[in-house]
């Protein structure tokens, strides 16, 4: 252990979220000395995947609402109902909640790091008869806190392949996208599948011929919407709402507009023309790229959590040292501006040229989402059918509940959509015969009720009247917020501190997070970074092959 404190580390990375872990991967062939810590005793930070037991421990640690965690902050006395719904966990002045890894003296561990104000109001519910109804042992589950689908065009996949890390990750296909329509006559029709290709559009009976022509015209436009020829069509309207643009420019009817908006996975339903077209373009150009019938993939066993772990192993293979369950504090009493001095909670003191952490405080104006994770006792096979010949069996289905689409709670005057990702047991997140459902919506006053209603409606629609709807065995619910969206970087002398923003709330992996990883990499590499772009994350295989190949034992 002593050796850890002797030499100065080129980088101490704190936290094993996706960004920090990808940074470790990027540095894994650099000969830089890397110490990678996590205050938690698990990998993945805000993108971790949990067994049921871990989920319960985590929920207990994040059960507080915003008022409870910031009692002395001045706004704790606000209307408590409001504060709970719109958590504004403060980044300043909050004595009760240790929101940062770095600035607390050693000994105040109770309040540091492992309690971030990004997640609040967490709770767990178990069916009273759960075991008898099939809830398995805790480790049979691996439930991700923030599941994201990864479009096949994402730079992340290109980087995982070029860095050779992809071999340790199993990727599964994301299959059909559905839109929930409460007004459909029979229950079977309540989930309508969004056509995924031109052929699919023509084959879909539920769309009238005239609408099909408008839709095809729009799809063609989106494929090269950013060309010089097409840009004038939308440029002046870039900041307008996509839904209105679809109506006025392409005459898409209300139904088709719902389809298109669902594909954007917009959380507030008000996606702009500019962002919406970019997302739809990504969706369409990703379709078929890796094989027929799917546009996105999902890493088995818990999504980006698994990618983070594999990236950390690559860091370890490259010589990085790993410590979990280890907090650190910056020792400000050391005057040397060319080094950062750190005290670790295990008693070791280390010095580093660069310190990379992630922001743990929710920004005051942060968007907040409410998530509901549900384990149900049915494989829900109708959601995972193969639609295109030759396509792999999908393991993830996406169901969009457009604004105001839930019956019975219309009086809540809803105007935000709900999305449900349904994961089959092929994801390894639940045992065979069950499914894991991840519902997300913006945190509004009735978010909890709306999510419950959406889950209920989903299970009824899948059962389609023929059988009893699936039973929910286990639920985990929580709210998640954002830190400021910029990376924070401070340099003193030759030493620098870099703080990643918290993970994006978007339901599809957003490539902008990868740019921050590269920024941190450039900072640590300094002059060693080749200006040539191709070097970043491009590695050769590193495998040992036996030279006495054919050993035979009978």
């Amino acid at each position: 252990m002593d050796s850890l404190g002797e030499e100065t580390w080129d980088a101490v990375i704190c936290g094993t979220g996706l960004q920090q872990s990808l940074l470790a991967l990027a540095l894994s062939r650099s000969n830089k000395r890397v110490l990678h810590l996590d205050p938690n005793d698990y990998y993945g930070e805000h993108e971790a995947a949990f067994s049921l037991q871990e989920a319960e421990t985590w929920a207990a640690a994040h059960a507080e609402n915003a008022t409870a965690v910031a009692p002395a902050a001045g706004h704790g006395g606000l209307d408590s109902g409001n504060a709970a719904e719109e958590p504004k966990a403060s980044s300043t002045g909050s004595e009760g909640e240790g929101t940062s890894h770095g600035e607390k003296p050693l000994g105040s561990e109770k309040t540091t790091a492992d309690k971030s104000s990004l997640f609040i109001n967490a709770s767990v519910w178990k069916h009273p008869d759960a075991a008898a109804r099939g809830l398995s042992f805790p480790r049979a589950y691996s439930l991700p806190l923030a599941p994201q689908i990864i479009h096949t065009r994402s730079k992340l996949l290109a980087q995982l392949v070029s860095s050779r890390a992809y071999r340790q990750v199993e990727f599964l296909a994301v299959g059909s996208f559905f839109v929930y329509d409460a007004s459909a006559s029979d229950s079977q029709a309540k989930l309508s599948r969004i056509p995924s290709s031109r052929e699919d559009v023509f084959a879909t009976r539920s769309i009238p011929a005239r609408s099909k022509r408008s839709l095809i015209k729009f799809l063609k436009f989106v494929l090269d919407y950013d060309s010089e020829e097409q840009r004038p069509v939308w440029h002046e309207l870039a900041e307008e709402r996509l839904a209105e643009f679809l109506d006025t420019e392409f005459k898409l009817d209300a139904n088709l507009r719902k389809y298109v908006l669902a594909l954007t996975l917009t959380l507030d339903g008000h996606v702009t023309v500019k962002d919406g077209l970019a997302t739809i373009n990504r969706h369409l150009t990703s379709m078929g790229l890796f094989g027929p019938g799917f546009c996105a993939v999902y890493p088995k066993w818990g999504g980006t959590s698994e990618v983070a772990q594999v990236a950390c192993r690559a860091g370890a293979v490259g010589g990085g040292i790993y410590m979990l369950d280890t907090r650190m504090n910056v020792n400000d009493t050391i005057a040397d501006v060319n080094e950062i001095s750190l005290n670790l909670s295990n008693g070791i003191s280390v010095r580093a040229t660069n310190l990379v952490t992630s922001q743990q405080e929710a920004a005051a104006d942060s968007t907040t989402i409410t998530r509901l994770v549900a384990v149900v006792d049915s494989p829900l096979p109708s959601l995972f059918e193969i639609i295109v010949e030759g396509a792999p069996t999908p393991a993830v289905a996406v169901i969009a509940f457009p604004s105001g689409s839930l019956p019975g709670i219309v009086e809540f005057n809803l105007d935000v959509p709900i999305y449900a990702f349904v994961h089959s047991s092929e994801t390894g997140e639940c045992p065979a015969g069950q499914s894991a459902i991840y519902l997300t919506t913006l945190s509004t006053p009735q978010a909890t009720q709306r999510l419950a209603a959406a889950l209920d409606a989903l299970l009824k629609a899948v059962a389609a009247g023929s059988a009893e709807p699936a039973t929910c065995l286990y639920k985990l619910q929580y709210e998640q917020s954002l830190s400021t969206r910029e990376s924070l970087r401070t340099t003193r002398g030759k030493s620098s501190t870099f703080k990643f923003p918290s993970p994006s709330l978007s339901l599809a992996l957003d490539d902008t997070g990868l740019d921050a990883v590269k920024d941190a990499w450039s900072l640590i590499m300094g002059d060693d970074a080749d200006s040539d772009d191709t070097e970043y994350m491009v590695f050769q295989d590193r495998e040992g092959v036996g030279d006495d190949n054919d050993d035979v034992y009978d």
Partner: protein
Amino acid sequence: MASEDSLPVLKVLIIGPSGAGKSAYCDDQFDPESSTATIGIDFKMKKLAVRGKAFRLNIFDTAGQERFRTLSTSYYRGAQGVIVVYDISNRKSFLGMEKWIEEARSNASPDAVLYLVCHANPLPSSFSSSSYIAVSLILTTIASFKVGSKLDKVAAGGRAVSVEEGRAFAESQGAGFCEISSKTRENIKRPFVEVVDQIVQRPQLLSAATPASNSTALNLGSIGSGYASACPC
């Protein structure tokens, strides 16, 4: 023998405490050049035929993550065999076996084959037994590893765990057992052969090993060639 690509692939892990604390034995005799062989390898490949059937073994070591017990759950995914290693001269490493076996049991497939290995070479501090064995398995000669003792010598002085004790513990855990020396290469392949032999007898493990048997997993590798061809090299 069948062509390389169609061989069933078995994932075998080697885990156990790190070799730290034994550096006094051998640092001075250790050839630093050869140590680079163990650093920076994702996994080792080895072809092995057992009972007339050929397999490709992908052998993973702990990559130093055993040092502070930070092996990830993803490391254990899909492993059909886990070889747990302790040090013949270090009683503490033997006493820690129960925890390692428990970790392997709770993270790897419930059907995975467990095998206990007693390792008889003192190691430099930078080594874990896990990576040392993985590498020595695939090297034909390891003459450059000038480490001090061997199985027979250790028995005279440095042995801290008897064969009987090791074997009895392995039996109580339902694991196979042998003592090896990576220096003399005594028994060096035996754990792998016996693990594969056990895996062969568990069809539920083998079914996951056959290429293309899994219709849901995507082969990003073939897609990867698309990326690779875009690279100027």
